[in-house]
């Protein structure tokens, strides 16, 4: 048996170019398959990490998934705002323990700006009920104070005391700046791995203040209210975009949801974050499965290539195998020789693929994080992926039986008789 393995390795080395190429195709296809699976899992994880302890998300009537997306993940736009009086009514409900109003629509260098209250820093939780912590500074207290997420601070190189200006709308570099009313960075939040990292937080009153001279939908030339005079105006918020609600008793969530959905003064929607996220996975799941199926097929193509290469080599190895048989190798030994070769190539291809993927994710993590806000954790292999790799190995075992069987059927005389 030992000799047989040594022979298999040497014989394979003799055909290193073709086998090497097959090895690469298997490595790449395994890397693709596991990569797709990994991105899918990490995307879902970072989504479900983003909110914890919030019982209901309340906003203008829209689809539950869309409400979740814009209120918690800051993806897409709100369909409508809700009135301040509505917020006060919901906050005053005896079943409600705490509320976080959020007001959206402005940005700073592509990072979303969220107007909120200091309740945000107290009640907002993520991951496994972890509260927000400050790596530097404190919550906003003045009108033009801003608290920035870790990613904003890192990418734009901001420190405490820096002056920043907000842009109207959600452009990259907004041409319509609120340049006349700069903000001061008073706090930087510790990294969370959630959309909070990419957010600039200001007070609700500040959102009112910067829009005082925007009543026409655009800045009116010649009409502007300097920052030092905005204090003279009534800065009570008139609208908010969404409300995160925490309840006294979580079992009362359906009744509160009913109350919000039937709220008489304006059409509202309340969603349970866990349920809305499940709905999101169901929508995204179709595309995910398609992607996984495609990468599965790529693996099949890779394995077919492997089988084809070994089968094709059978012809040139006719002599080699016949000589082996003539010195005493049984048909079974020849069968094992060829099967082992196929299995060995898939095994090393899988290992190389995983190493490739690990190296790739490790080097691309910062890029993915900053461009897509997606946290991918570099790791060599995880428990869930073992199943997928096991399937690949099982199929490759079956596939490598084919050339083994063909070689098994070759008779001794067949290889030793020269054919013209």
């Amino acid at each position, binding site marked *: 048996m030992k000799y047989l393995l040594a022979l298999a390795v040497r014989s394979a080395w003799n055909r290193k170019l073709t086998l090497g190429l097959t090895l690469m195709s298997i490595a790449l296809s395994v890397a693709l398959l596991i990569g797709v699976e990994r991105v899918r899992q990490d995307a*879902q994880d970072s989504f479900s990490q983003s909110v914890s302890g919030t019982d209901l998300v309340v906003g203008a009537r829209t689809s539950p998934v869309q409400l979740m997306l814009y209120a918690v993940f800051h993806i897409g736009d709100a369909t409508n705002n809700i009135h301040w009086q509505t917020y006060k009514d919901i906050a005053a409900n005896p079943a409600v323990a705490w509320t976080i109003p959020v007001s959206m629509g402005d940005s700073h260098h592509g990072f979303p700006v969220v107007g909120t209250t200091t309740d945000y820093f107290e009640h907002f939780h993520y991951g496994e009920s972890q509260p927000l912590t400050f790596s530097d500074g404190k919550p906003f207290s003045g009108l033009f104070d801003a608290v920035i997420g870790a990613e904003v601070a890192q990418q734009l190189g901001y420190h405490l005391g820096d002056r920043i200006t907000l842009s109207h709308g959600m452009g990259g570099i907004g041409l319509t700046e609120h340049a006349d009313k700069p903000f001061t960075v008073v706090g930087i939040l510790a990294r969370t791995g959630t959309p909070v990292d990419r957010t600039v937080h200001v007070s609700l009153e500040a959102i009112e203040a910067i829009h005082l001279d925007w009543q026409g939908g655009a800045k009116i030339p010649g009409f502007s209210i300097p920052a030092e005079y905005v204090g003279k105006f009534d800065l009570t918020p008139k609208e908010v975009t969404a409300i995160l609600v925490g309840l006294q008793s979580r079992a009362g969530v359906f009744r509160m949801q009913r109350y919000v959905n039937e709220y008489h003064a304006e059409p509202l929607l309340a969603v349970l974050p866990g349920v809305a996220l499940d709905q999101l996975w169901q929508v995204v799941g179709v595309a995910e499965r398609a992607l996984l199926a495609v990468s599965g097929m790529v693996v099949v193509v890779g394995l077919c290539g492997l089988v084809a290469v070994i089968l094709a080599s059978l012809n040139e190895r006719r002599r080699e195998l016949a000589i082996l048989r003539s010195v005493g190798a049984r048909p079974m030994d020849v069968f094992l020789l060829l099967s082992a070769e196929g299995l060995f190539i898939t095994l090393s291809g899988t290992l190389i693929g995983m190493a490739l993927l690990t190296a790739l994710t490790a080097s691309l993590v910062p890029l993915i994080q900053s461009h897509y806000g997606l946290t991918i954790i570099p790791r060599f292999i995880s428990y869930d992926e073992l199943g997928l790799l096991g399937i690949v190995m099982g199929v490759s075992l079956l596939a490598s039986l084919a050339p083994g069987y063909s070689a098994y059927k070759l008779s001794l005389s067949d290889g030793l008789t020269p054919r013209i």
Partner: protein
Amino acid sequence: MQSKRAFYSIGLMLLLIVVQPTTAFSVPTIVSDYKVGDRLQQQQQHSSGAKSTFKQVTWDDLVPKGWDPMKGFKKLNLSKLKDSDPRAQEALQQMREAWNNAPVEPKMDGARIRIPGFIVPLEVVRHQITEFLLVPYFGGCIHVPPPPSNQIIHVFPMKPLTDMQSMDAVWISGKLETYPSDTSMGSASYRMKAEVVEPYKPDEN
């Protein structure tokens, strides 16, 4: 001879391609067999083995014996009232409030029970549900008010649930705790630290 061998090999490869996507890449389907409003079948019968320490109960057992939300309007002859009658409107309102303040069955406090229901996830961390509500019927039915508080169990599974999503049907087993409505927690409620959460199978028992 040669062509026959090649034929077998190609056949084997094709078989792999055909078989593989269906077996290896079959993923759980999202289509549920339940329709909105469905309740789970439950036989009043004690199962054997490890489950026997838990008494199997129905959702009706969670409603106190003798509690009647219609008690307030026994004297009203409802069949004589028209829909537009203000007294009918008032009665409906009262009944809704009675349901809202539905009491819990005090005898159930500390009972070790086993009950089937549907999951509404509250806390999901890394695909694992660590906290959820168990409700008696499937789907959020928006035509009628939600289940009253004595038909909801707030569950903290001892081991986080994997591979479960909203409205999956499960059996939960554990010690039930009651919180009457006079506590600071607001309305009355049931809570459970579930020792066992297992997928619901209709042919069980």
